[in-house]
């Protein structure tokens, strides 16, 4: 079992207040400032819960895909992944769109797409989200 934590302090109302994500226990990032206007309108260089979910998802997906490819005997040289999270205020998070561009010696496009599809469904972050969100994938080999 693995546990990871993070802390946030918020001051004031939702619309006019602001918050800080403290430096995380690993020391990898933070402090980061958050606010409603930067979450729901122009970010102006500030992160948001949706961006952090995107970062977690893209990272989890890349790791799962590298694992799947290696287990199939086609360890990747490089994978470039991204995740885009769509948030509709009042409705919720409606979509997580994953993409992958792979540099994988000796693998054809169809098998890469299959591996990416499995990673999309199997990575732990997808497991926590799927069912409540539209999950899409666009995967191709580096040309």
């Amino acid at each position, binding site marked *: 079992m693995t546990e990871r934590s993070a802390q946030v302090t918020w001051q004031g109302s939702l619309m006019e207040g602001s918050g800080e994500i403290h430096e995380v226990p690993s020391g990898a990032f933070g402090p980061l400032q958050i606010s409603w206007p930067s979450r*729901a309108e122009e970010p102006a260089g500030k992160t948001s819960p949706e961006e952090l979910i995107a970062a977690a998802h893209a990272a989890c997906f890349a790791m799962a895909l590298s694992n799947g490819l290696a287990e199939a005997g086609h360890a990747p040289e490089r994978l470039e992944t991204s995740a885009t999270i769509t948030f509709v205020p009042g409705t919720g998070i409606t979509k997580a769109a994953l993409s992958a561009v792979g540099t994988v010696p000796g693998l054809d496009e169809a098998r890469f797409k299959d591996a990416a599809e499995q990673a999309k469904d199997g990575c732990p972050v997808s497991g926590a989200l799927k069912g409540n969100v539209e999950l899409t994938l666009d995967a191709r080999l580096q040309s």
Partner: protein
Amino acid sequence: MPRIERHADVIWDGTNTRGSGRIDAGTGAFSGLEYSLPVRVGKGAEGKTSPEELLAAAHAGCFAMSLAGELRDDDARIHVTANVVMDEVSGKGHLVVESQLHVRARAQVDQGAFRRAVEAADEGCPFSQLIKAGARVSINAELEA
């Protein structure tokens, strides 16, 4: 209703067990965050993050904002710690199984109104709703004098 999109990019080099990745935020708020499998499933730290640490930051931020929206108090002070738990589930591999929230708040409300605000914040926080598809959300909340 506006649709808001936020994205992040990752470059992963090498295999799952021996490779490593770097994470960039679309807004530029953070970039070049390193992560790897040994750090993700081990004790952590070494200055490297993990998907679960990023989810913890997302959930703490999301819940704090939702609670601020419920309390409607310009002088409120809300402190949220999120603890995201990943475990190996028989037949399913590693899964995010729980996010534990510890909330401490100072606001001009009584205990009953505070409890209702916490429940409404859980229902209103998009991340809480999202991960309930596959994981538990537990909340321990305390109103400070």
